[in-house]
């Protein structure tokens, strides 16, 4: 049973990393919900 416990533990370590990456990717790439302000030059490229 010990190998299964080890597999279980390391699976959750890997899951913690994968979940953190999923959050970074999923939330980091969301386009902003704030409307573009056309009077500000750099915002036109947003």
């Amino acid at each position: 049973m010990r190998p299964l416990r080890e597999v279980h533990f390391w699976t959750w370590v890997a899951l913690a990393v994968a979940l953190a990456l999923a959050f970074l990717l999923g939330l980091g790439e969301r386009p902003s919900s704030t409307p573009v302000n056309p009077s500000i030059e750099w915002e036109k490229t947003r």
Partner: protein
Amino acid sequence: MSVHYQAVGWNRQKRIYDGVMGGGVALYLGAFVGLGAWVHPQATAETLLIRGLGTCALLLLHVILSIGPLARLDARLLPLLYNRRHLGVTMFTLALAHGVFSLVQFHALGDVPAPVSLLTANTRWNSVAQFPFEILGAAALGILFLMAATSHDFWLNQLSPQVWKRLHMCVYAAYLLLIAHVLLGALQSERSPLLAAILGLGCMVVTGLHLAAGARERRIDRERREAETDGFVEVCDFHAIPEKRARVISLGGERVAVFRHDGKVSALSNVCAHQNGPLGEGKIVDGCVTCPWHGYQYLPDTGMSPPPFLEKVATYRTRLAGTRVLVHPMPCVSALKKEAAR
């Protein structure tokens, strides 16, 4: 324990457990649809129902995944484990309803069959904001179906506890797929930071509990005990074990439950033959070691289930030196399969 298979071995505890679960699900769905219609009057009933079913399934999955480590960290929560399979099947049913309603709502009115539409309508695999997140949910639903379909003891026996356990550990892959399904789906259009924070908190709680419980298990596994000249290993003082209860130790990498009963000690494998439950967290009831998960029983001296049952777990030789409890690390019976006990 039962000699014959039956769909559900109902008893009072299971009825209470399922009653609380069913009531909680109905209350959640009612509150979600009711509040949703009030806050977003433009939302259709179908949309509210689809989202209510999906969030309810996801919430239930977090509860299910938290029960195991919580019961390991605090034995008082062990009763939650007793009927966890009913929670799992309920969660799958909610997720299936969410999937079917979504398929009908978004894919059933086109020129191609709905399942084909699901797989081919969106191919923007390189876009995060428009990723075909539905396929992630469908893949998770496939895994959950396999688990729900094999949740009965009939399949546990057909597949063997080891294979069954490994199959059911696929829930972790399903969990990752579902979180990605929500992050790349609903949370791309629903921008409220509160929703993202709730999902993040849920992930942190589940992951944190599993890592904390896993670290505790690893500490027990790494305990080193010196053998005496006759090979026996000192475990603890006799009085340190409560009457009809056990102390769990690690001997040669295997967990052993040392029970105290009627002025003597008996040592058994800590692994129940049914679903690998922790026997050492159970107690002696009617002269039998009783697994805290599903009540499987074993005679403390032989490791055999009382007739007519055929289950068997390994036993270990024990010795008392004064009040010192000693256990030999070699099991008396190595074959755990019940066929070997026949």
